């Protein structure tokens, strides 16, 4: 079986999934790893369901994560965690943002989502990342970065905070550094 590290990020268009993908891939790139990502642009950006894949390791072929092979799923909207489920197995860590945008018809509750995902894995973390980012940073766009920081804290990503910070500095304009650095360490500060 292949030993690549596979990340799936799900959310809705406009939540900054592509920036998050760029940061993670740059950090992996700086370590000399092979990378493939897959992303979607266009109409789906306008508030619709979006999911992106990031894979890194020795040699990556497909840009898409095969079923049951995700190591980490970041769900920026909690219902969207369900769109990560096909990639999940026992080894998968889910980090879920307790934040909801409406869907057509009946919504699913956070508890339903959690119960569904727990059929695949015990490693499910849910926090109100959006609420915390709004409260502490007055900004929701960095919610993905806060979740990434949390995943690193939990040891769910084979990249260090320093490596992520380096990558952020390389790809983001300097005026955004401070906000993103704060977001990256936000959840840890909360605990202390």
């Amino acid at each position, binding site marked *: 079986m292949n030993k690549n590290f596979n990340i799936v990020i799900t959310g809705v268009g406009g939540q900054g999934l592509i920036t998050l*993908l*760029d940061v993670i891939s740059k950090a992996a790139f700086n370590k000399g790893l092979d990378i493939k990502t897959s*992303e979607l642009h266009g109409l789906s950006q306008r508030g619709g*369901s979006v999911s992106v894949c990031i894979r890194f390791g020795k040699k990556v072929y*497909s*840009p898409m994560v095969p079923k049951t092979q995700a190591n980490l799923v970041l769900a920026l909207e909690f219902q969207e965690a369900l*769109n990560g489920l096909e990639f999940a197995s026992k080894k998968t860590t889910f980090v879920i943002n307790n934040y909801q945008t409406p869907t*057509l018809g009946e919504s699913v509750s956070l508890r339903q989502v959690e119960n569904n995902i727990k059929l695949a894995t015990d490693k499910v973390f849910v926090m109100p990342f959006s609420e915390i980012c709004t409260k502490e940073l007055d900004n929701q766009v960095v919610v993905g970065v806060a979740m990434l920081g949390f995943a690193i804290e939990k040891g769910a990503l084979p990249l260090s905070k320093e490596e992520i910070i380096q990558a952020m500095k390389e790809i983001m304009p300097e005026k955004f550094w401070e906000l993103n650095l704060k977001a990256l360490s936000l959840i840890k500060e909360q605990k202390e």
Partner: protein
Amino acid sequence: MIQDLLKPSGKAILLGNEAIIRGALESGLQFVSTYPGTPASEIGNSFYKIAKQANVYFEFSTNEKVAMEATIGASFSGLKCLVAMKNFGLNVASDSLLPFFYTGSKGPTVILVADDPSCHSSAQSEENSRGFSYLGHIPTLEPSDAQECKDFTKLAFGLSNKFKIPVMVRLTTRVAHQKMPVVLGNLPKTKNLLGKFVRNQKRFVTMPPRVLEMHQELLEKMVAMANFSSKSLMNKVIGAMGKEKAGVITSGVAFSHTMEAVEIVGVKPTILKLGMFYPLPEDKIKKFIKPLKKVLIAEELDPYLEKEIERIAKSVNPKLQIFGKNVLPEVGELNPDNVAVGLAKLFGKVYAPKVIKSIKKLKHLPRFCTGWPTCPYWKLYAAVKQAAPEGTVFGGDIGCYMIAALPPHSLYDYLFSMGSGMGIGHGVKKATKQKVIAFVGDGTFLHSGIPALMNSVYNKSGVLLIILDNSITAMTGHQVNPGMGKNSCGEEIAPVKIENIVKALNVKNIAILDQEEEYNQLVATIKEFVNSGETSVIIARHICGLLEKRQNKK
């Protein structure tokens, strides 16, 4: 990333579309024309930012046919050209595309087309542009990843130069929108952008009887290119044949999925990776399939390769068992999993990963922007619903406002292709006594909406056309268009006023209203115009919320 496009050397993470740009720049590109369309949009967006620094001429043309013609003219004048578009754009360009293979190119020319299997960002059909390869005898390369996007673009320029014919590079979403580390080559130091058109009627004028000779010459070029293709390393065999005598023939992103599937299923087929889809390397294929007992053709959408290989097998290996669309889907894109299913079947195995079923098939639908910024289309569609008489037929078109087809609006009664809302509305109006309101965005109106409006006036159908003027081509990422007062080179130009075009077409009822400021008047005007029996136009003018937010930030 875009800032790496002009990096002198080394390695950089590039999007497939960016790697196409880099490959073109490394080849000494001089001239680029395009019309935005996802999944090819980033090509224009990036050139818009870097063209000056990269010393290439770049333009967003008014539509794909015009973009194609711009490149044809520049190629005839000796420049090295790239023209890029999405699949449906190639349909628009096709009238000028086909003769270009009869005349051939003078300056080496690459045509980039991006398909979108699974229609992630495409509405009208799950088009497979490989059909055009047969239709026009179009030499076609299919990169499988971002590195190959760069390498194959260079190869395509080389082939175009050698055979004096344009070469198409065909991507799909998962190639165009993937990122990977790409090894960069050297960028040429200096470049002259000045060409010269040298009269050569025999070459550039397609008229009978000469046009038939040109057809013959094109077929001869294809024979020569097929021979070249059989020798080219673009088409390569990976892995020796095992005792099962099983092979896979694949191309494009399906190759990457195949390599993944080989690991997942734990089998060892020999793989023929085709970089050139047309003309096919027949000799190489013959050699590859001759000793095989069975072969899987892993290709997305229509079974073009499969049919070719069935044909070739008849002469060299009639007993060959061919697996293709009997084990792989013909609708929707391929991925590592469905290829693994097919590959397992080839080896008499079963691949069934233990997936936990989701309690709900969850889908957030795209919607008009809400909150800050707010999309001006909310108010517009509210006004339309309030004003339109019962039984009105609503015609959609291509752009952000396609979203009005979805709930909560669920408005359109038909939705087709660029500029067709009015064209089809005219037909409905002529065939019935029903009222018709068609919608078109400012970008789409300028792309292909004008002839349809002219037709409605000329043939007197009395459709009400609402032109949604948000002053930008919004959906594909805010590209400039002729209505904006700025061109692709960043020069200030006199903006094309849509109302002037409409007036010039002799439309009698014309109103320009801002749905945010003049809502009640808009409702009244829709009622008046739709009941007038005349072809009428309302220009609903309010700036795109995203654009307004961006402008305020500056």
